[in-house]
């Protein structure tokens, strides 16, 4: 079984002797006035998945494209598999796989033709039937790119990125714009790559995706890293066990002030999202009973009350004061 997974994954197992797959130091990139990436350091260890999380314009794509050798950094160092772009560009290209955020394959080509074309660029790698199998496009072998659904196109793109059995795979928003089912299929592919020991660097807007796939996370905003660690560790920085979200009846507006709420025992932080109030709390029970008492005492009515375990989204909002997606 383990063997079968290995064969399907299309990824080379990590080398035993080696240092980190990716090492980045003080990376900076400016476009005129805009500083897209403002000094970023990180490492990606072999056989792990690093998630790069951040809102639109955070600098994720710019960072990844500097790692892929597509964009020249203004400052800083990039080391891929212990190699540098300046000296070993060709060798790096043989050993990495990339799916770009925006590129499209020609409509008039068939799926297998696209794969065969890209396969011909690499010294060694999978054969295209294997690749088709890995990304679940075996029946679409002879279909024109034009006739593929969005999810299928995205899987083709990932299939192309896996053709050379890369040691590192870069996936830039592989699931943006896909419906939940298509998204899940992409996740399964990434999980198979990980199971075979591949190194993955993934950018995403989706917390759920990051929590499911990433071993380590970096949250970026305005070109800077604002948090890093395992998903659990990052969530733990909230120092909260629950998030309590409630809203009062229409017209109640801001009947409860920040001071009122902070006075409740166990409330760490407060923010408002439209009509509702979100409390980050340590002890949900006590806060909720305190909240009920307060509402009753003021003669207000509770319209909606929900609690959930804190997520990365909560961390993100508490760090930046804004939501991850422009929705």
């Amino acid at each position: 079984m383990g063997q079968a997974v290995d064969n399907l994954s299309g990824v080379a197992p990590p080398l035993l002797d080696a240092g980190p797959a990716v090492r980045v130091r003080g990376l900076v990139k400016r476009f005129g006035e805009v500083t897209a990436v403002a000094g970023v350091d990180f490492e990606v260890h072999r056989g792990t998945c690093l998630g790069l999380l951040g809102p639109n314009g955070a600098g994720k794509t710019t960072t990844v494209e500097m790692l892929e050798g597509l964009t020249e950094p203004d400052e800083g160092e990039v080391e891929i598999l212990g190699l540098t772009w300046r000296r070993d560009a060709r060798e790096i290209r043989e050993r990495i796989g990339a799916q770009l955020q925006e590129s499209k394959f020609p409509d008039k080509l068939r799926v297998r033709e696209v794969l065969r074309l890209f396969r011909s660029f690499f010294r060694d790698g999978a054969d295209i039937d294997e690749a088709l199998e890995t990304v679940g496009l075996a029946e679409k072998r002879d279909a024109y790119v034009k006739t593929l659904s969005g999810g299928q196109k995205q899987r083709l793109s990932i299939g192309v990125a896996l053709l050379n059995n890369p040691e590192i795979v870069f996936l830039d928003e592989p699931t943006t714009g896909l419906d939940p089912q298509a998204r899940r299929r992409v996740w399964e592919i990434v999980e198979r790559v990980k199971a075979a020991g591949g190194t993955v660097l993934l950018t995403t807007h989706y917390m759920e995706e990051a929590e499911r796939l990433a071993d380590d996370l970096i949250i970026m905003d305005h070109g800077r890293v604002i948090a890093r660690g395992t998903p659990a560790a990052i969530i733990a920085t909230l120092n909260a066990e629950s998030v309590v979200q409630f809203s009062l009846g229409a017209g109640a507006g801001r009947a409860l002030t920040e001071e009122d709420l902070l006075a409740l025992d166990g409330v760490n932080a407060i923010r408002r999202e439209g009509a509702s109030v979100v409390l980050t709390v340590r002890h949900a029970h006590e806060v909720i009973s305190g909240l009920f008492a307060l509402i009753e005492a003021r003669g207000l009515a509770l319209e909606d009350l929900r609690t959930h375990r804190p997520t990365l989204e909560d961390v993100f909002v508490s760090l930046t004061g804004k939501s991850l997606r422009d929705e």
Partner: protein
Amino acid sequence: MSRLAELRELTRVRVYAFLREPEAVFWVFVFPLVLAVVLGLAFRSARPAPSLVAVAPGEGSAALVEALGASDGLEVEPFQTEDAMRVALRRGAIDAIVEPAPGGGEPILHIDTTRTEGETARLRIVEALAAARGAPLPEPVVREQTEKGSRYIDFLFPGLIGMNLMGTGMWGIGFALADTRQKKLLRRMLVTPMRRGSFFLSFMLSRLVFLTLELAIVAGFGAWVLGVPFRGTLVAFALVSTLGALTFAGLGVLTVSRARTIEGASGLMNFVMMPMWLASGVFFSYERFPDVTIPFIKLLPLTALNDALRNVMLDGASVVGQGRELLILAVWGAVSFLVAVRIFRWE
């Protein structure tokens, strides 16, 4: 995989992409044939059409109509009014108006002297009037020239081949490149170890694949259907055409080497090709342009290609005799290609 496999796959993809684009196939293979047929029909007749004339009303006009109508080269058109005649002359619907002179003197001719047709009509009218008077003009002995190779279609056809090589080279390559760039496919390829040289070379190679088809179809049609002569050797013809195709492929790559969008690329290509459509002697000889401009016109790649094609096809010239033209083509092609590769925008 090997460099060869990479080149083969890149070329294969180019060929597929082209063959699956019906419009491209039309412009490369069908359009030149349509053009040749239409022009061939238009210039088919062995002798020039008769001159169309009108006779203005007045004393003696009936006798004029009779005298002119007797000539093979003239056809008298009836008109209701004199005004209608003048309008027709202005528009070139008739070539001359003959107005009887009061008192029976020599008639007055209204012709447009800037048109060849006007001059032809004048000569025919003079001839017809002399014959009617019973004193025909003395006529030199005429030997008719009907040899293959001197008809307009024979002049035109090599020009059409040249124009087609230019058009397909530039459009074929320009569009494919601009499209690849606009779809960010170029960047996607840059992440792989693809050799940039193979990428450019594949465009040249795909051109050669189509060139063979294109020449076989277009030249075959010219030879068998229109009877255009191919006096030179097949080798000479193939060499000149191949060099021409590669030259324009290079020029095509250069033209779009920085264009970001398809629209921009298409504007640039028209800008580059337009002067050559007009000046390089496709439809009429460039000798008609002012003398000072001719040395420059001769330096244009399409002029060189058309001249070499005509020399080889119509006069049976050897390749060696086309040194100057081939050199011009080679320089344009090589310089364009080298500059293009240097300034090429991959983003």
